[in-house]
């Protein structure tokens, strides 16, 4: 399956009324959409409202998604529209005068507000630290495959070419890397389980 249509079956199921398929897409893209919205909108509470609006619009409009572009590209365009609509209603939320919106967006963590919720900020730091520590203990070939996929954005087939391994090995290496890190995150995330999907 190619990267551009990697969501196509989940989208098809969602279009047929399978709510769980849509939820899987929300879980998958919520942070990336939030980061994009944060490029336009100042307050973190408003970012969450806009992100909700993005997924509400996407859900209502699933029938209009024809698969001409990747699902995430479609979602991204909806997010841009929703953020601009929000700014029309509330120009005070505009990031005018902010000379570093990209850096602000990079630093943005959905749902996290330093001043309002230091516990969440601490947890985010614990997650980042735990993942960094886990990476240093991970077998290099597993870390390499995971980083090529998640950070470099390479599709599985390209990773197989780069590492000169079968695509089945790419699949298992990425899975084993995730599992290794997930196990080390369990103590950090344990109390949150009921709040997740």
């Amino acid at each position: 399956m190619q990267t551009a249509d990697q969501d196509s079956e989940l989208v098809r199921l969602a279009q047929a009324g399978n709510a769980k398929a849509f939820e899987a897409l929300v879980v998958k893209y919520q942070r990336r959409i939030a980061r994009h919205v944060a490029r336009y909108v100042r307050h973190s509470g408003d970012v969450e409202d806009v992100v909700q609006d993005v997924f509400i619009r996407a859900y209502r409009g699933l029938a209009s998604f024809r698969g001409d572009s990747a699902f995430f590209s479609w979602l991204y365009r909806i997010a841009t529209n929703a953020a601009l609509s929000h700014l029309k209603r509330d120009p005070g939320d505009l990031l005018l005068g902010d000379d570093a919106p990209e850096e602000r967006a990079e630093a943005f963590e959905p749902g996290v507000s330093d001043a309002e919720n230091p516990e969440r900020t601490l947890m985010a730091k614990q997650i980042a630290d735990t993942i960094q520590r886990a990476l240093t203990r991970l077998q290099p070939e597993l870390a390499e495959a995971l980083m090529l996929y998640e950070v470099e954005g390479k599709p599985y087939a390209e990773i197989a070419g780069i590492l000169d391994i079968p695509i089945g090995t790419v699949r298992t290496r990425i899975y084993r890397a995730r599992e290794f890190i997930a196990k080390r995150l369990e103590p950090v995330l344990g109390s949150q389980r009921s709040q997740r999907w």
Partner: protein
Amino acid sequence: MSLKVSLLLDGQLAAHEVKDALDETTADPGLRDRYTVYRLVGDALRGNSTPDDGYSIRIFDRIRREGMRIESGYDPLADNR
């Protein structure tokens, strides 16, 4: 089965395998947890280390609360409210 969750997340399953994998994942809290944690790991590696503190749950709640339906004539890209 966690391998399937990883492949589901990355769109690496064949089309005919997706629904079964989705059903199995959503029916099992442990597998659902893996799906969200694998995603969290990827997001964190890209520099966003926030926990999922109910963000997605609030989106699903709002969809249910507002009784949302897929609307055949609605184009979200033309929505400039």
